[in-house]
């Protein structure tokens, strides 16, 4: 089966009001080329589920979000995401604010096709007060109440990986998969951008197949976008672009800043974007972060 498509093909599948999960974590391995494609499209009123970074910030800035399911939104070295912050402080988006682990349990429940997973996480907190849809349940096995984390089924998951083949076999060699496998399994359809498009033989020998974390039956479509995670990182291929993030964050402080950022980096299209971001060679040289 040939699952190759373009970013435009992916976004053409999206409908207003859909629930979309976005892989990666904060400033790391986000499918940013697909996010930029959404920003260029008329799609709106999205519910987004994300371990959020600039993906969420940009969707907020462009008015694409109706609702956000999140535990945090951060660029890490810039702790507070400026456009997310502005949207929240303006009361512009609905939110389901939950614990990082609850988010994972919600995805896993959807992936396992069960309505909820019981947990102690979230008990006693304002996560319950602000999410009346999250219920406590009695246990059939003990006398305690447990939090029943509801499944978070996704219409679509958007992910970025190191490399993939046309069948949808995806490989992540960075030190952390984050929750990408859970996003893929929780979604009715999963679209993946890859830095490198390879032949099936690339996975056949040595340890290569050990870095494939879900079956190709979870992958609906594959888009080849070199540096498609930029300005987020795709370790070990490239680190995140601190200079670009600073420029992005600074844009939030000036009037019309988002419009200028959009004009310079989004409206121009992906080929021109990469040039303006310094070119593929420069992106591949971005240092991996040291903690």
């Amino acid at each position, binding site marked *: 089966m040939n699952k190759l498509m373009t970013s435009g093909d992916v976004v053409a599948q999206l409908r207003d009001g859909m629930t979309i999960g976005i892989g990666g*974590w904060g400033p790391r391995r986000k499918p940013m080329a697909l996010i930029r494609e959404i920003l260029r499209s008329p799609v709106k009123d999205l519910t987004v589920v994300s371990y959020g970074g600039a993906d969420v910030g940009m969707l907020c800035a462009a008015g694409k979000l109706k609702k956000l399911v*999140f*535990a*945090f*939104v*951060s660029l890490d070295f810039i*702790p*507070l995401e400026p456009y*997310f*912050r502005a949207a*929240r*402080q*303006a*009361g512009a988006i*609905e*939110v389901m*604010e*939950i*614990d*990082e*682990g*609850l988010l*994972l349990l919600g995805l896993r429940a959807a992936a396992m096709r069960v309505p909820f997973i019981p*947990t*102690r*996480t*979230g*008990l*006693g*907190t*304002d*996560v319950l*007060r*602000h999410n009346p849809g999250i219920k*406590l349940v009695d246990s059939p096995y*003990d*006398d*305690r*109440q*447990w*939090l029943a984390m509801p499944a978070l089924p996704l219409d679509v998951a958007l992910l970025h990986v190191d490399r993939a083949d046309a069948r949808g076999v995806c490989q992540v060699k960075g*030190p*952390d*998969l*984050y*929750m990408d496998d*859970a996003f893929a399994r929780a979604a009715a359809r999963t679209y993946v951008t890859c830095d490198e498009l390879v032949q099936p033989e690339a996975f056949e020998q040595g340890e290569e197949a050990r870095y494939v974390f879900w079956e190709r039956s979870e992958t609906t479509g594959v888009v080849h976008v070199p540096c498609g995670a930029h300005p987020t990182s795709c370790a070990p291929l490239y680190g995140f672009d601190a200079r670009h993030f600073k420029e992005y964050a600074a844009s939030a402080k000036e009037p019309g800043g988002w419009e200028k950022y959009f004009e310079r980096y989004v409206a121009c299209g992906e080929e021109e974007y990469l040039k303006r971001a310094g070119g593929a060679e420069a992106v591949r040289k971005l240092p991996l972060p*040291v*903690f």
Partner: protein
Amino acid sequence: MSDTTLVDTIICAASEAWRHDGEVLATGIGVVQRLAASLAKLTCNPDLLMTDSEAWLVSEPVPIGPRGDYRIRRETHMGFARIFDNVWGGKRHAMVGPTQVDRYGQANISMIGADHRKPKVQMLGVRGFPGNSMNHANSFFVPNHSTKVFVEGEVDMVASVGYNPARLARGWRLEDIDIRLIITNLCVMDFGGPNRQVRLCSVHPGVTVEQVQQSTGFPLHVPGSVPATPAPTAAQLAVLARLDPHGQRASVLGA
């Protein structure tokens, strides 16, 4: 007392949080917290597990910042999903930096304001605080001890649970919650007062008990005599110099 001396005193006091923990994952989020956990592993509790703050469990605490030829000593993979496995099993003691803390030990890093739909100040979100606080031991570091942090009522968003009986779900007890130390720029506190009231354990050199109480929005339990927080030993300072070769700790108190 200079800021450098003060921050070293704070880190050494904070490292005591892990002394009796045995073999648990010590997580310090923030420069002071990470150095404190690292110091604990290299001095009072070598059995601690630690990560490189990225994706590996390491046998030796990793120095902060650019580290030249230093090679991390890996023990196992410890990506974020695996951290949740550890959290849910309870073998962890995290030291974190909340923005607000109340008399119950409930803490907030999410948002400031009365209306969750439209916060006055949006911060990070609850992150892993709800899960951490219901699953394993937690301590806090607060670099700016004031009534803005240690609030009079409840925190604006209860991100992590505390010893608040009113919020317990049926069948749960306060014994299921484990909040250990609060280390600030003024003092060390714990929950050892009557009915788990916040208790003043020690004040840093030059700080008075009155100053701590005035900077705290709720009444503290003050024992008959409150000692001074011990000064770092030469051995501790030598370890800290190795763990923080670029001196990042010098600026964490806002100097």
